[in-house]
């Protein structure tokens, strides 16, 4: 879990360790919120969180409910 001022992204552990899924998350995000560590696991790029455009592509890329984008202003 990691949060910005306005947007928080939560990724379940199982997803964060799944190399293929992480690769997919990196690909779909237009504002580079996701990165892949050397061991293939997920790294959330904190400075980019607030750039999230709420496109939901990351949410759709993972099994239902495993990636959650939370608006911290609601």
């Amino acid at each position, binding site marked *: 879990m990691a949060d910005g*001022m*306005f947007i928080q992204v939560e990724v379940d552990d199982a997803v964060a360790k799944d190399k293929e899924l992480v690769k997919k998350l990196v690909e779909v995000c237009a*504002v580079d919120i996701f990165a892949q560590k050397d061991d293939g696991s997920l790294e959330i790029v904190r400075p980019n969180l*607030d*750039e999230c*455009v*709420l496109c939901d592509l990351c949410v759709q890329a993972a099994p239902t409910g495993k990636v959650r984008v939370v*608006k911290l*202003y*609601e």
Partner: protein
Amino acid sequence: MRFYEYEAKQLFRQLRMPLLKGRVAKTPAEAKTIAEEIGGPLVLKSQVLSGGRMKAGGVKFPDDPAGAEQAAKEVLALEINGHTPRGVLVEERGPVAQEYFAAVTWDGRAKAPVIIFSDMGGIDIEEVAEKHPEHVGRVHFSTIVPFNPFRAKEAISATGVSGSELNRLTPIVAALAEAFLRYDLTLAEINPLARLEDGRFLVLDGHVDMEAEARDRHAKLLDDLGIGKDETREARPPTEFEIKGAAVDATDHRGVAGNVKEFDGDLGLVIGAGGGSLTLFDAVRNHGGKPANYCEIGGNPSVQKACGLTKLILSKPGVKKIAVMMNVVSNTRVDIVARGVIKGCVESGRDPGETIAIFRIPGAWEDDGFKILEKYGVEYCDRSVSMYEAAGRAVAKMSK
């Protein structure tokens, strides 16, 4: 993007136009050396991007190298309309029999380039056109049919010039028109174009403007002329604040937060887009507000860019509050701008609710934007409040 006279003349020299002997000097000693090479009466001209050089004392007429050195010292130290001279142009001086005017520019109404020629050079062409229209020739030419010199001939002939004068002037004016097209110029002017008493035709002074949008297409020419990539060449040199504004806009390629211009007021403006900024700047001034800056945001800038712009404006001494306003937006997102300006306030150590006098950006993603603004206690309004009224609310808060 305006050229200095010596750069314009360098371009004219490449085009094989007849020029006076001489070149630019950066120091009085250099001016003396050039004067010795020329060996005769001289003209020294301040190299500034401003009109009114003669009136300001930026043009001198020494007779010898010693005089040239002294005159160069004075000219180089003289600031003209806020511009420091880049150098001093040292040229030979010869007796002039007649002065002509030749220019090529765009006619936005005809959507074509136009050659303007007059046999009454040296004075304001607008004035000549008004008082002596028969002495001004205007000829439009095609941008897709190759240029031919007869167009220049027609413009010159229209003023009644004939004989050998016509035949000697035509190639000079034709070269000007060809250069105008080849180098994406917006103005190529020779004034005066002189006939000396010895019969020679010479370019005495020139004014060249290149389209800013075409700069990178003519990198070689600009490099040859020694024009730096970061020289803006606007009516006044950019301030440090404006240079920082350009740096904010360059942080990423998403959207625009640019054209930052500095003013001396206390109300910072985060406004957009092109037309909206003009409308809002007028509105703030109409309400008696004092803008600290002008800017244009648009094209859906990143949170980072809106944040950077906000921080820059808040860093300016004397800025009490900022107003964040745009016309109804289509592709710029309300929520993204809201995030950016709030973040900018917080990172500047300011309370967004206190610092943002008003937020008036209706349109795309406004529901999310308004929720963000509510959370941080920022006063906002939707499209039912006009741009003018929003500006009024911001100004009213400044006097509290």
